């Protein structure tokens, strides 16, 4: 069953807070991982691996660079879970 956008966003907020130490409250759909949240390329890999485990989806390496915003990641995970 496909995950809802709200459920994925909530889970992703927890992951980003845990991996990169960014308060969940400041993580929104429109925020850019690099320029707004200061998540560097290696932390992004940790976020992706944690998200794969949590949501049971595969996020290939070549997709990771395309996930610029929190919304990009949420939408990718939602469609990958469908």
């Amino acid at each position, binding site marked *: 069953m496909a995950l809802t956008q709200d459920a994925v966003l909530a889970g992703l907020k927890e992951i980003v807070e845990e991996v990169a130490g960014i308060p969940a409250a400041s993580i929104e759909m429109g925020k850019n991982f690099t320029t707004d949240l200061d998540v*560097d*390329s*290696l932390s*992004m*890999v*940790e976020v*992706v*691996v944690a998200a794969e485990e949590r949501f049971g989806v595969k996020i290939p*390496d070549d997709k*990771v*660079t395309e996930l610029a915003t929190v919304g990009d990641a949420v939408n990718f995970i939602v469609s990958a879970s469908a």
Partner: protein
Amino acid sequence: MKSLEGSNSRIVSVGAYRPARAVPNSEIIDRIESTDEWIRQRTGIESRNFARPDESVIDMALAAAKIAVERSKLSIEQIDTVIVATITYPFQTPSAATALVAALGNPQAAAFDISAACAGFCYGVGMAHDFIKSGTSQNVLVIGVEKLSDFTNPDDRATSFIFADGAGAVVISASKEVGISPTVWGSDAQSRDAIVMEPSWIELRGEIDGDKWPDIKQQGQTVFRWASFAMSKAAKRILEKAGVSASELAAFIPHQANIRIIETMAKEIELPDSVIIADDIRTSGNTSAASIPLAMDALLTKHPEAGGGLALLIGYGAGLVYAGQVVQLPPAWNS
């Protein structure tokens, strides 16, 4: 046909050679428009050592090997096998190992090189153990040595601050006790492109210039993911195969590729705080095959009390390939 009776083995000594010239991040950053802080944050590296232009792979290997042999209390004639792990010896043949045994004054020893990049040292340790176990060898010298400054593009923003030079060596001898666990090894050759040194020598025929020189290139995110997560699983398999729990370890000495990979692995393996984690990457950079013996030497220098304790070793790199084992550390020479 006869079969020989082999025995267990252990690392009896370690030796290291670091080139004299320390190169801080400040010397690297201008060509790649980076900062000291950026490099430290991504890799943990503060400084690394580069060999002199006239200082060769063999010079560095010889220096480390002499220290290891001296600390082993063996004579050079008693070393019957020499394995050199390197990807930067600039001759196809004869091998670096034969140059080394000639320079050591023992030109009769079995000698060969292995190409397993940053996993090379652990491949060598595994082979040394198996040679002794099968009765083929008695005393094996395993050396990891690299002069990566010859094969790194100083303008490459993905690699120029990572790689460095140095040599580390161990002597592995027959022993009554189990001092080296069975090796866990393998590859993920579908990711051969993740770390490469190219172009090939054939492509260079007749047209060597700066742009064509083979240098090392790396896909950082792909390698980070594989190293941090797949290698943590491999590390757990090593412990399981050795029958050793994480709490029994005195030290964790992984390939020194990046402090963040090391920290992620330590977390994934759930190492208790009592385990000393090698962090030679901070001042030595990534010296590929040389990094584990260099880190072992640094760790025993700083923590002589870890001598004789158990250490988890794991090497991983271009191929992608990996190997690792639990070893009993040699006694510290300074305790």
